[in-house]
């Protein structure tokens, strides 16, 4: 492989199941040393792409390569330096956690030098690892599967929805582990349907929708473009014209609550609200992925950017996102 060659590359990758087109000409180039997010709603084609990369399914046309090796024709070499997150419900139920980790390390033919670090970060103790997997909760299985995928510190990690089933605290620990693995030179390709997760973890992102890549850019570019929803609660009647001062659109007014749609950053919102003493509460949320597609890519019918009213429903993250910035 060339020194600067992409770790993962796909060329016009197509997968059809009968008359259904799951992937419709995917072109991806994942550079070395990045955490690369693969973002899309459920059913967009994320898992199909990953299954093609893993050689689980054969492309209808086009090709996928890992480290320069064709994923279907030369799968053993393509997977030689790769860690893959096996779905949590696809683990041997009658194995203990310890036995599974040992088994998967043996099949990888690499020493599990990161195992202990991962077990500590993901809070998996020996008391848990000695038990059979049939007694594990979904979250515990997910932690074990993550440890198994990453324990050998492979140069490439392919993770399909890695934080699915993890509680928020463990998610943060996992993100720190990912950052550390990346610092050590690994490339991480992770799929997600959670925009917030991708924003927190990834350097670069490809967005897939209906089997096609609709955007591919850095996280900073993504952040600049998509809208945020701000729910501002005032102690009294919301001031008139506040949306103009902030440079936002009003989605809804409900008593003391104003729901705003912000484009770009949140700096002007924070600046305006900081000057007031009647702000009772502030909640920032990210739009849903569909809203990103509709608003950010102007995919609505009349060509105008719109944020659907139901996108104001609170979503898990956000105030933390403000604090971080």
């Amino acid at each position, binding site marked *: 492989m060339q020194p600067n060659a992409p770790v993962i590359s796909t060329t016009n990758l197509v997968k059809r199941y009968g008359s259904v087109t799951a992937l419709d000409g995917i072109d991806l180039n994942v550079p070395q040393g990045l955490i690369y997010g693969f973002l899309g709603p459920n059913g967009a084609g994320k*898992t199909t792409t990953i*299954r093609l990369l*893993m*050689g*689980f*399914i*054969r492309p209808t046309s086009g090709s996928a390569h890992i480290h320069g090796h064709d994923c279907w024709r030369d*799968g*053993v*070499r393509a*997977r*030689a330096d*790769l860690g*893959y997150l*096996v*779905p949590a*419900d*696809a*683990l*041997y139920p*009658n194995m203990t956690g310890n036995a599974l980790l040992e*088994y*998967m390390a*043996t*099949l*990888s*033919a690499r020493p599990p030098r990161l195992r202990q670090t991962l077990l500590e970060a993901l809070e998996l103790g020996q008391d848990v690892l000695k038990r059979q997997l049939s007694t594990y909760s979904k979250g515990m299985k997910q932690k074990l599967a993550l440890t198994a995928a990453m324990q050998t510190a492979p140069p490439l990690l392919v993770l399909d929805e890695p934080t699915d089933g993890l509680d928020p605290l463990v998610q943060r620990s996992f993100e720190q582990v990912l950052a550390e693995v990346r610092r050590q030179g690994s490339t991480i390709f992770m799929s997600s349907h959670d925009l917030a997760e991708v924003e927190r973890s990834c350097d670069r992102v490809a967005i897939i929708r209906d089997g096609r890549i609709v955007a591919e850019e850095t996280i900073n570019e993504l952040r600049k473009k998509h809208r945020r929803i701000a729910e501002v609660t005032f102690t009294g009647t919301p001031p008139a014209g506040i949306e103009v001062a902030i440079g936002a659109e009003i989605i809804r007014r409900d008593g003391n609550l104003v729901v705003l749609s912000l484009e770009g950053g949140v700096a002007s919102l924070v600046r305006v609200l900081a000057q007031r003493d009647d702000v009772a509460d502030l909640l920032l949320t990210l739009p849903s992925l569909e809203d990103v597609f509709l608003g950010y890519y102007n995919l609505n019918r009349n060509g105008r950017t719109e944020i659907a009213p139901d996108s104001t429903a609170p979503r898990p993250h956000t105030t933390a996102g403000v604090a971080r910035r």
Partner: protein
Amino acid sequence: MKPFARMTARVLRSGLPGLIALLVGIAFFEFVQPLVIASFGGASGLDAIMSRIPPALQVFVRARPEFLAMSGLAGYLSLGFTHPLYIVLAGAAVVGFAARTLAGEMDRGIIQIPLARPVSRQSVYLSRALGAVIVCTLLALSGPVGMIAGMLYARPNGALEFQNFGAVALAGFSLFFAFGGITLCGSAAANTAGRVVGWSLGILILSYFIDYFAGVWRLLESITFLSLFNYYDPTRALVDGHVDPNNLIFLIAVGVVTALLGMVIFIRRDLPA
């Protein structure tokens, strides 16, 4: 341990309690045969009983008096290796193993564990095939071992060459191997273990009854060559220690060809979602 050996050990361990139960069941079933024969007064006592049974019923116990009179104790004991219960127990073990280790693992997604590693599909398949060969060997040995134990315990009246049990085991292995190959092939092509078990046991039972009823229904005589049981003769194996090489080659060939076909299918197919 090398990945291939680890995978083989893994597939054998995954269904070990069930396999042990079936092996013990088969051994116990064959252990009982000499005890039953001894309770009738040995081979000579059974000769007298068999001579009074109508010919049509003799077919159902797969024994004709003239043959049994000539083959003696070995002939009566060999009925334990053609008995439907023995066939069902052994068939369940080999079909269950071959169905569970490929189609079952694909159905549950477990097959991704080895296939996500730098392990070829051939290796994954061959580890299952080796597991099936080991299961067939254990099945083929468990019956004779149980019967030898029963012989030593009951000591029924009549002559028997103990070394002929080796030929019985060989005949049994070839039959189980053929069904194992067929099931592996189906398992490689299917997405669920249940469907493979259904089809494979269906073939086994159909094959058994074509051979079984051919003795009383002339229409079936012309198609007995289609039954794998047509190539399985434990009676002759136990009576004179002989296994027809043609039968042996045919059954082994069926197992090898179908298993190889299964490997080709498994290498080329998409794994189920």
